[in-house]
Every structure is written in structure tokens, then in C-alpha cells.
């Protein structure tokens, strides 16, 4: 029940069951690169005036959504947030559909009904976020409640920022998850700011310290170390899947871009960027993999190809037809959530968990 680092937690119950093959590690890097490339391209499109409204990204936080979502099985479910494009990509969302989404095209995931990161590909098991934070934490509890009631070995995972932990709905979600011992994994991304608000104005004590009093483990990891994040998430989802209840993983990181593209970040001390630039999750992982003799150029090249293809596709998508604006307020059928991709080698042949 103690608040510990992932490593210690792992040691506590024997060395982690989770194993990463070289292919897995290539995949982790590739997804981080794909996330960054997609967001860089989206930002370019925004600056070209092709993205209406506002633009948000997860620059510097790539290791978190990638490292956590990588542990999920096909039938697990997600509520993915605005800094977590990597999770969408891992579950199988094509970059082109994300770009089309941001441009408000018909080919976007919400068909233009919603914009920016406010989407989820329901065919891949994601219930898209709403703007109100952290409302999805409770929806995630509802997904997990269903797995529990049906006695299915499935996990629900969601993400939120540290600022969101000041909101009452965050508390209600943690409390319900603890009381019902739900199979849910909460990923807390502490990127130092909530829009412009620093930690000390959001809470008096690091939120991970609260978890003990909710009756489940709170774990803190280096959010810029994709493998540390992965191992913590693997352990947490294993626990949830086997009836051990929820876990919250706080990932320490830094939001390297503004809250949105409009944000000049005048409130962020310059040094902070310098310090955190040194810890860039992609640079760090590339060094590590290069030392292990993994060919990075190949990965870079394939990511570049993919982004070019996907951008072309996205730009070729039409805007939605005006009449669709009046459609779909009410459901007339009950389409089900589909399953997501599960690229981790652990799931190969494992079939549906």
C-alpha cells in the first residue's frame, strides 16, 4: 500500500513479469517518434491556418502515453487525454485521421463534430475525452466496474494532469475505485503546470501521497524514461487484471510547449526548459537503443515516410457536409466499443485477454 517508486514496487513482489524484446523497444521508440512527428506536423498545419480553433500537444511527455498504453491488451479500454497522442497511435489510430480531426475534416475521427485532441476512436476501444477535467476518470471507473461485474480479466486505463487532481471529480473517482477495488490504472502526468498554474498553487503536497488513504498503491516514476513508465504500468495493469484493484502512477515530466499554441509561457522560468531539455525522453531512449546496436535511421526513415503519406491523405479529405451538423444528437442503435491494437510482444498469440 506504500507509496514507492516503480523499481522498489517491482522488487517487493519479485522481479517484474513484464519483459521487453528488442522489437518491443524498437516499437516504443517508434511510437514516441511518431507522436512527436505527428504533433510537429499538426503544429505546422496550425501555423498554416489549416487547423481551426486551438491546438494542444504533448511535447516532452511522449514517454508517458507510449510507455503506459503499450502494456494494454486488445480488450482493455482507454479514456485518453490531451497530452497522450501516443496512446491513440498504439491502439491503432492512424496519424492521418488525427491530422484530419484537427483540421475539422470529414475523415477526422469525430467527422468534424469535435476538434483538437477531443476524440477517441471507439472502434479501437477508446472513449474520447471531454474538455471538463478530470471527468473521464469517473467514466473509466464505469468501464472497469463493468469488467468487474462481468468477471472479465480486463483493464481500464486513463490519464490526467496534476492540476486535475485538485478537482472534486478526481477525488470521487479515486474513492470509488478504492471502495470497489476496480481494475483501473490511473496515470497522473505531473508536467509541472496546469495551464499557467504551478504545482504549489494546485496542492500543498504531492498528490501521489494521497493514494495510501484511498486504499491502493500510488507509484512515482520518471515520466521521461519510457521503460520505467512501461514497467510501472505493466505491474499496475497486471495487478488490476488479477483482481488486485487500482493503481495510480505519477509520472514526473515537463510540458515543453505552451498549454496551447497561443500560450507564450511567460510564466515558465527559462532554466526549467534547459534542465528538462536535457531529459528529453526521445533523445534519452535513442542513446540507450543506439548503445544496444539498434538501427535508428531505419526507424526515423519509416516514421518520416508514414507522416508524409498520412499528411497527404489528411489534406485530401473533404470538409464535412453542413447537414451532418444536425445529425446524431440521439442514438438510434447501440454500436459497441471495438478492441484496440496490442503491439507488445506479450500479447502475440495471447488472443483476447
Amino acid at each position, binding site marked *: 500500500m506504500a507509496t514507492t517508486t516503480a523499481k522498489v514496487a517491482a522488487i517487493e513482489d519479485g522481479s517484474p513479469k513484464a519483459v521487453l524484446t528488442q522489437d518491443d523497444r524498437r516499437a516504443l521508440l517508434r511510437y514516441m517518434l511518431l507522436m512527436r512527428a505527428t504533433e510537429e506536423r499538426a503544429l505546422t498545419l496550425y501555423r498554416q491556418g489549416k487547423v481551426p480553433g486551438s491546438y494542444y500537444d504533448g511535447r516532452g511527455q511522449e514517454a508517458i502515453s507510449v510507455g503506459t498504453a503499450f502494456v494494454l491488451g486488445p480488450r482493455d479500454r482507454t479514456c485518453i487525454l490531451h497530452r497522450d497522442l501516443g496512446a491513440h497511435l498504439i491502439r491503432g489510430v492512424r496519424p492521418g485521421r488525427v491530422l484530419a480531426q484537427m483540421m475539422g475534416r470529414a475523415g477526422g475521427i*469525430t467527422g468534424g463534430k469535435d476538434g483538437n485532441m477531443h476524440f477517441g476512436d471507439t472502434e479501437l476501444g477508446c*472513449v474520447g475525452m471531454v474538455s471538463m477535467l478530470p471527468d473521464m476518470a469517473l467514466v473509466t471507473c464505469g468501464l472497469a466496474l463493468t469488467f468487474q461485474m462481468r468477471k472479465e480479466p480486463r483493464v481500464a486505463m486513463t490519464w490526467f494532469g496534476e492540476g486535475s487532481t485538485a478537482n472534486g*471529480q478526481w477525488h470521487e473517482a479515486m474513492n470509488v475505485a478504492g471502495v470497489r477495488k476496480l481494475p483501473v490504472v490511473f496515470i497522473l502526468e505531473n508536467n509541472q503546470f496546469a495551464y499557467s498554474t504551478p504545482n504549489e498553487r494546485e496542492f500543498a503536497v504531492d498528490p501521489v501521497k494521497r493514494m495510501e488513504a484511498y486504499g491502493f498503491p500510488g507509484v512515482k516514476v520518471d515520466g521521461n524514461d519510457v521503460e520505467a513508465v512501461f514497467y510501472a504500468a505493466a505491474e499496475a495493469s497486471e495487478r488490476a487484471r488479477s483482481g488486485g484493484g487500482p493503481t495510480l502512477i505519477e509520472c514526473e515530466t515537463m510540458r515543453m510547449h505552451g498549454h496551447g499554441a497561443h500560450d507564450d509561457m511567460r510564466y515558465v522560468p527559462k532554466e526549467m526548459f534547459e534542465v528538462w531539455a536535457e531529459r528529453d525522453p526521445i533523445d534519452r531512449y535513442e542513446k540507450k537503443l543506439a548503445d544496444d546496436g539498434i538501427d535508428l535511421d531505419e526507424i526515423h526513415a519509416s516514421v518520416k515516410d508514414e507522416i508524409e503519406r498520412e499528411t497527404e491523405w489528411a489534406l485530401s479529405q473533404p470538409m464535412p457536409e453542413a447537414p451532418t451538423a444536425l445529425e446524431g444528437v440521439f442514438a438510434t442503435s447501440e454500436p459497441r466499443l471495438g478492441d484496440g491494437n496490442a503491439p507488445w510482444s506479450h500479447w502475440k498469440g495471447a488472443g483476447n485477454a
Partner: protein
Amino acid sequence: MPEMTYLSAISDGLREEMRHDESVFCMGEDIGAFGGAFKVTDGFIEEFGADRVWDTPLAENAIIGTAVGAAVEGMRPVCEMQFADFIACGFDQLVNVAAKMHYRQGLAVPMVVRLPSGGGFSGGPYHSQNPEAWFLQSPGLKVVAPSTAEDAKGLLASAIRDPNPVVYLEHKHLYRRVKGEVPEGRYEVPLGRARVAREGTDLTVISYGAMVSVALEATEDIDGASVEVIDLRSLVPLDTESILNSVRKTSKVVVLHEANRSCGVGAEVCALIAEEAFEDLDGPVVRVTTPDVPIPFSPPLERAVLPQVDDVKEACRELLAY
């Protein structure tokens, strides 16, 4: 057909759906061991177990938010707010998460939120509210408000089977006062269809929920006038055809409800008529509602704000004489 109270008709309808469909379950504060503040789920935990009759923590956003998650995963949660007034505490999950889900993402959210609503028994400002108009201003929610035992059961069944979030207003004052014959077994009263509670030709009173019986009593005999009474039953979707047909027939309309006046359901009905049936009107469209005040506790004060039979009589007389 057995006779049932409005209250037992609700229980019966909920029980039938839970027996019929494993995915239907209920959640709320004190609905299990205690059987609910009004005993709607009395005996349920014994029959269905603590998982399907969940005594939740004291947290309304949690109730509605987890219900949304369960609903999109294929369950059919039926949430109880202990009093309708507490919906304000779960408002965000209802209007922002549940209501907009299908429009934004094409996901069905088959859930029901039961709201024991209304006053008339010294519940005071926090146990007497009629919040339905908020939901008409929140696209994506269906809203029903039965006035009879038969409709209470049939509309609840439809609400549970509907693929959308449905706000089900059950008026506390009707729980044990209203009795009626209720078909056994499962049946549905379709959403979106008003009921002609009494046929008439001289004037129409349009109402719903607890005020329907007030309308009937008030218009039973107004100097022999033939007064039609329409029970809307469903507020979203609103049965505009039935409303307009009646207006075309009688040319005079009184709209009656217990909720506050400004931007209430009555305002919507009046606006509809003023726009769609202007030529058929032989007089002003009159509203009888609770004025824009909280519902006071003390009997003489509460009586002074809630619409009374005589208020309706007077409004009808004036309009008939117009």
C-alpha cells in the same frame, strides 16, 4: 389488471427490467440495504444482490459518471438521485459527458437517471425542486415525467430500453397518492407521445407530472365548459403534433406546471404555440406555474407558491370568458 400505486408501479417496472436483462442494474445512495429513501428499490438487494443494487458513496458525479462508463460498455444503469435537487451535484457529468457522447463520438449511452422531484409536503427549498427545464436546454438528453401509475411503469421501461440517457422525473407527491390499474409483466409506453387525459372542445390545459391531476380536478366543471387536458408525459421528445392539434381544436390554451416560471417547459410550449398555431388562437396563451422563487418549507408559504386548483380554475375561467 392489479391496482398499484405510482410508487409500486415504478418498482415493478424496474424489477421487471432487471429480471429480464442482466445488464440492467441500479446504483444510488441508500438504495440497497435501506431500499431507497422512498423505498422504490425495497427488496431489490435481496433479489438481485449488492452488485446490481449498488449503495454508492455520497457522490452524484460519481454515480452518473460511472454509469456513463458502464453504459458505453453495454450495461444499462439506472441511477437514483436521492432527491431530484441533487442532480445539480452531478450536473456536469449529465450535461457534458452523457448528453453529448453520441453526437460527438457516436456511442450509445443507455442509462436512466431517476429524479424524485417536486413539492407539496414541506420538503423545503432543497427537497422540492422541479429541474426538468435545465435538461431541455441540454441537447442529448431525453426527459419523461409520468403522471399515472400505468405510465410510470411503461415510461420507465422505455427509458431503460432507450439507447440514450433519459432523465426520469418521478413526482414524490404522486408516489402514494396516485393509484391505478397497471398491466402485469413488461410493456412500454413510447417516449414522445402525449396523452389526452380528457377530451374537450372549448379550452386546452397542457400539463405533465403532478399537475395533471390538478388540471383535471380544476376543470371538471367550469360552468359546464368542455376542457381538454393534455398530459405531455414526455418532455424530450416533445409531442408537438398533439399539442398543436388540440390548440387547433380549442383555440384557447392554459399551460400548467409546478416548476418555476422563467424558461420553464411552459415557456417552450407557449412559444411553440405562438409560432406554429398563431392563427388558431382565440386568446392569449396563459401560464400557471410556480413563480420564480425557491420552494418554501412552511405549509402556508408552500401553498402560496405552488399552483393550486383554484389558480387553474381562475385562469381557465378568464380565458373562457375572453
